């Protein structure tokens, strides 16, 4: 039996190309304070704390240890950390609340993607013996995926331009977006490819960012929030890393996670998909049965800001915030990790009927 757990508060910092003044702890602290204030909880009232980050972006082993100091874990707290996007930290916290001993959880994530050469850093994720020595960059890998999508006749470059134009136009209404503009699709298509067939605008910006969520269970959620965003289903799945083992034109792991999370149960008012490259939105729409849904990535998605380790949790937060605000009743959020959508997490959120 699943215990009702909801997102009751969400906060994020405005995404920027490079936060050069503040360190990671200083960058994260206002977000933590903001989300705790929104929930009306101080750290000692929070049952479980879980964070997501990666040492490879900080350039230092055990980097999460410093940020935990900023949270104020005294007296000692129940806490954990995942070397994954914050969306998976939320998953661990959701599991913890399922056990029934604790009623609230703080989930946070942060990264500076900007200080190192991100494309080179991400290549350190690949098979260390056979692939990483070749230093393939994430854009080239996404370009291979895009090429297979085009070759399969499943999408056109005009489809990509539609995703880009809509996402960046949506981002104009998102105060936390890093990249927002209004340009005609024809203009976009007139640009030269950067890594063929991807044009520069098909790629996400490099972003520094942080976000945080408070979860609460059952009656505690109702006490703390007028309109909790209930997690109706959450699941994550992985595929082999090797590109040759996968059909890159589909996302089998997203489809499976979506089924387990109950995506098909009822219509969605909103979807936030973590698609760093524009063609990936089309693959994810297909995997989640969203077809030509007219409210995908109202925040602008990862094309508006793509802080590594953060963009996934932010998708959950963006959907939850709309339910908390009362502008949406039901939504789906998606997070991804690894090259070419290797690992995917899907969350279905729902408000109480008004």
């Amino acid at each position: 039996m699943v215990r009702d757990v909801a997102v009751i508060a969400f906060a994020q910092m405005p995404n920027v190309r490079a936060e050069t003044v503040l360190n990671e702890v200083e960058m994260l602290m206002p977000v933590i304070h903001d989300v705790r204030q929104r929930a009306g909880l101080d750290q000692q009232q929070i049952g479980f704390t879980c964070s997501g980050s990666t040492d490879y972006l900080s350039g230092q082993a055990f980097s999460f240890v410093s940020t935990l100091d900023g949270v104020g874990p005294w007296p000692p707290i129940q806490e954990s950390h995942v070397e994954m996007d914050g969306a998976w930290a939320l998953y661990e916290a959701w599991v913890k609340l399922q056990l029934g001993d604790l009623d609230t959880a703080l989930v946070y994530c942060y990264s500076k993607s900007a200080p190192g050469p991100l494309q080179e850093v991400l290549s350190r994720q690949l098979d260390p013996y056979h692939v990483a020595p070749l230093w393939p960059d994430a854009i080239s890998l996404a370009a291979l995926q895009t090429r297979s999508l085009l070759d399969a006749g499943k999408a056109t470059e005009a489809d990509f331009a539609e995703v880009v134009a809509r996402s960046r136009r949506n981002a104009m209404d998102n105060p936390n977006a890093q990249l927002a503009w209004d340009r005609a699709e024809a203009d976009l298509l007139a640009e030269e490819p950067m890594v063929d067939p991807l044009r520069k605008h098909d790629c996400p910006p490099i972003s520094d960012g942080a976000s945080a969520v408070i979860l609460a269970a059952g009656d505690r959620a109702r006490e703390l929030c007028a309109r909790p965003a209930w997690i109706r289903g959450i699941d994550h799945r992985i595929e082999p890393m090797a590109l040759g083992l996968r059909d890159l034109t589909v996302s089998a792991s997203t489809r499976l996670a979506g089924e387990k999370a109950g995506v098909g149960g009822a219509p969605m008012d909103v979807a936030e998909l973590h698609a760093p490259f524009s063609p990936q939105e089309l693959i994810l729409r297909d995997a989640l049965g969203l077809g030509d849904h007219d409210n995908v990535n109202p925040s602008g998605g990862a094309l508006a800001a793509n802080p590594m380790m953060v963009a996934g949790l932010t998708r959950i937060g963006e959907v939850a915030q709309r339910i908390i605000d009362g502008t949406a009743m039901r939504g789906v959020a998606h997070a991804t990790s690894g090259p070419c959508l290797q690992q995917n997490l899907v969350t279905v959120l729902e408000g109480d009927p008004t």
Partner: protein
Amino acid sequence: MSKDRVAVVGIGQTKHQATRGDVSMAGLVREAASRALTDAGMTWSDIDAVVVGKAPDFFEGVMMPELYLADALGANGKPLFRVHTAGSVGGSTAIVAAQLVQAGIHERVLTVAFEKQSESDAMWALSMPIPFQPPLHAGAGGYFAPHIRSYMARSQAPDHIGILVALKDRTNALKNPYAHLHDHEISFDSIKDSMMLWDPVRYAETCPSSDGACAMVLASEAVADRAEGPVAWIKGTAMRSEPTMSADRDPVLPRGGSDCAADVYRQAGITDPRREVDCVEMYVPFSWFEPMWLENLHFAPSGEGWKYVEDGVTQMDGDLPVNMSGGVLSSNPIGASGMLRFAEAALQVRGQAGEHQIDGARTAVGHAYGGGSQFFAMWVVGSEKP
């Protein structure tokens, strides 16, 4: 809400050694995981989810290596999760895996922890600048030596206690075929005469750098009830964290460790750990941490931990055997070291610890710590269903 019961039904580990040059990272984790599956009488397709843990990715030079290892760990189409909580990670990883079963989400979870330290130089990866402190320490021993000095001053412990712990653990390791260090010539004097590294910690009182992996299959009550051999029932799990720097904290006897122990004993219904626990695997990377943790985990009164060591209480034939496997002092694949403690506790209550078995062990504690003595993970396992 009631938690589902969980049991350890399969355990596997690699031979730990300085360099496992015969296998890739994938081969290393596969070796431990395959042994755990065989022990559980299962195949890869029986597993619902995989939970991986390891210490900093810089130790191997691969960012989030679980992504690359998904294939080797049979995780295709399954949930794969990666935990990292510093040195306590092997324990935390087992706890996160256990919670998936406790919550009723999965029935059979494979959990794996590893480190392949030979791929890089962990000592320097562990020598991070600490804000507001002069960058004087090299390696974790440099960080912890002042804590040990403080313990010696407070408890008036004599200098040779650390040597006794090292002698016991390295001697126990001779009974464990998987242990990294097998020094058949070890003696009190050979430890005493070894090089002083971080006063008062000598070379022979320090953990080695190891390549190695540990894996366990955790299963629901329904699955465990059908197991052919004995299983280890999880009677309690707990984690605590505290800051690196806080005016209130005592890094020698940290409150987080004490709270963690109190929580896990309460869950397991243990009121007098010294009497009710049959054996303990605790995370002792430097010899002196045994007496310190004996006190921190409520086995010995404050200031008395070293007397247990001196009196032989923690020997294989003592009242409260500690680190029967040889402990971290004999094998230290860092990310796996916590899980090895948890796994040894489970082996003991299953009666399958071979030459390092404590006769009649029914209740055992596994303990791991990390960071600047600030992250703690513990479990209590028993031979009887809770």
